[in-house]
């Protein structure tokens, strides 16, 4: 099956000599929900900018469903929809006009554009705002408007650069649901995000980029399997004055009723509970403290910084 996106030895050096991308190669399969993660300035937005023709590459090749973005730019662009990080629509235009104009740039007749605009504005909960100046929309509405605009030509590859930045939790969840539906209907999605929980929840595969190089490219499942330890928070019934000591389980008394414990993958949590119970400590509830992916992400970025590993 043809890959949705193929990046081959991509480099980008900006005027002034800053090398944003150093020979990166990447493949995103059709139908994938792919996360591109990395700290600020890692090269995520530059990569997306090149895919969408907003940034001129210095070297390498990019193909979208087999169409080279240089040789066959018209076909390649027809297949991509982009939701950028910054608001980049005319704030004086109405949402309906923004969508119809965007459809027009892709050669879609006005009557079809009107039907699609209504469909996507309704799906994203913006139909009642379709005829107000877009500058009056809230931040979350503006983000959804950019998603509707990116979908108006029904692309096969949707690229989202931090689509839920600054969006409240409830709205973020509804946007996740919408993106899952779009992905389930066959659209390949590439997502950059700072919310690693978002990548863990939505994506199947991931690439971590740092200082212009890809430090990890694998499935989310395989990535999480690399985790050796997890930190759990235990709420206990009776307050403690002293932290209990259990061999092999480093415990910390955070509050009189709260313990933290680090558990390695090979260790049994049942055994921990048995020992705690034996000491008369009753555990009321337990939760995972750290975001698992976040922990891995920092480990990898740190390793890259100190030059320990470049897998």
């Amino acid at each position: 099956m043809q890959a949705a996106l193929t990046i081959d030895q991509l480099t980008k050096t900006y005027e002034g000599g800053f090398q944003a991308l150093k020979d990166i190669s990447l493949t995103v399969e059709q139908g994938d929900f792919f996360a591109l993660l990395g700290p600020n300035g890692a090269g995520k937005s530059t990569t997306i900018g090149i895919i969408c023709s907003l940034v001129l590459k210095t070297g390498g090749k990019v193909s979208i469903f087999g169409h080279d973005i240089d040789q066959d730019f018209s076909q390649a662009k027809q297949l991509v929809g982009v939701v950028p990080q910054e608001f980049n629509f005319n704030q004086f235009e109405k949402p309906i006009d923004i969508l119809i104009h965007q459809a027009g740039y892709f050669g879609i007749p006005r009557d079809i554009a009107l039907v699609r605009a209504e469909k996507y504005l309704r799906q994203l909960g913006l139909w009642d705002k379709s005829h107000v100046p877009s500058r009056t929309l809230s931040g979350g509405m503006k983000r959804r408007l950019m998603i509707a605009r990116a979908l108006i030509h029904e692309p096969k590859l949707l690229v989202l650069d931090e689509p839920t930045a600054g969006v409240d939790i409830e709205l973020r969840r509804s946007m996740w649901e919408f993106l899952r539906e779009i992905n389930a209907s066959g659209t390949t999605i590439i997502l950059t995000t700072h919310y690693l929980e978002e990548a863990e929840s939505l994506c199947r595969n991931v690439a971590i980029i740092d200082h212009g190089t890809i430090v990890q490219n694998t499935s989310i499942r395989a990535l999480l399997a690399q985790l050796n330890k997890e930190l759990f928070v235990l709420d206990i019934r009776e307050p403690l004055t002293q932290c209990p000591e259990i061999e092999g389980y480093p415990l910390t008394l955070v509050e009189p009723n709260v313990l933290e414990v680090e558990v390695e993958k090979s260790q049994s949590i049942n055994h921990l509970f048995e020992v705690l119970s034996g000491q008369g400590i009753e555990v009321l509830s337990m939760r995972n403290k750290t975001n698992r992916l976040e922990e891995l992400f920092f480990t990898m970025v740190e390793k890259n910084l100190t030059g320990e590993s470049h897998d």
Partner: protein
Amino acid sequence: MTSQQKWIAFITIVRREVQRFLRIWPQTLLPPVITIVLYFVIFGTLIGSRIGEMSGLPYIQFVAPGLIMMSVITNSYSNVVSSFFGSKFQRNIEELLVSPVPSWIILSGYVVGGMSRGLGVGLIVTVLSLYFADFSIHSLPVTIAIVLMTSLMFSLAGLINAVFARNFDDISIIPTFVLTPLIYLGGVFYSIDMLGEFWGSVSKINPILYMVNAFRYGIAGISDINITWAFTMVSLFCVLLFAIALNLLDKGSRLRS
């Protein structure tokens, strides 16, 4: 893109541009009309009546073609420069850059949008000028051809200015320090025969002189310069500016990082 898709893209850009200047008509249509009416009242009626004739015409009939051309030039230019730079500033130019629209369609769309405003204002001013001056058309083909080419040329120039502009100062420098002096020294208010041999020759460097005179020839049948030469000059400028503007868009100069 198929030819039909390109046509839809072109019409979309033109429609958006026309909607833009109609939406903000108190900023785009009203001021040039008021300015030109004032010119007619002051230079045409009040001062013009004391000047008498110029090149064998009553002064108001002499300045009317120049004033119409002035409104066409400034409005064609300012529409494209402000619209394109506004798109750059708000970054909504990216809507076009991520789409499959070829550069020449983007260029044509913006230019036709600028021409629509330039010619629209020119038409309004022409109708108003009939209230102040009584004139007939000497040659309709010459009048229409030169006004279209002038509008095209300054729309192209406006786009080039907008591509290079980095801030709002950059889009007012050219109209203020280049365009306005060229218009005022382009034979709108006087005949270059009045300047003497040396300054008359210097004036011939000014492209606006050719446009104003060709337009005056089309309306009143008089001109300070050769009409064929005027059309040749304007055509050359149009081709040159089109090539520069297209090259800038193709390369993505100051549009893509």
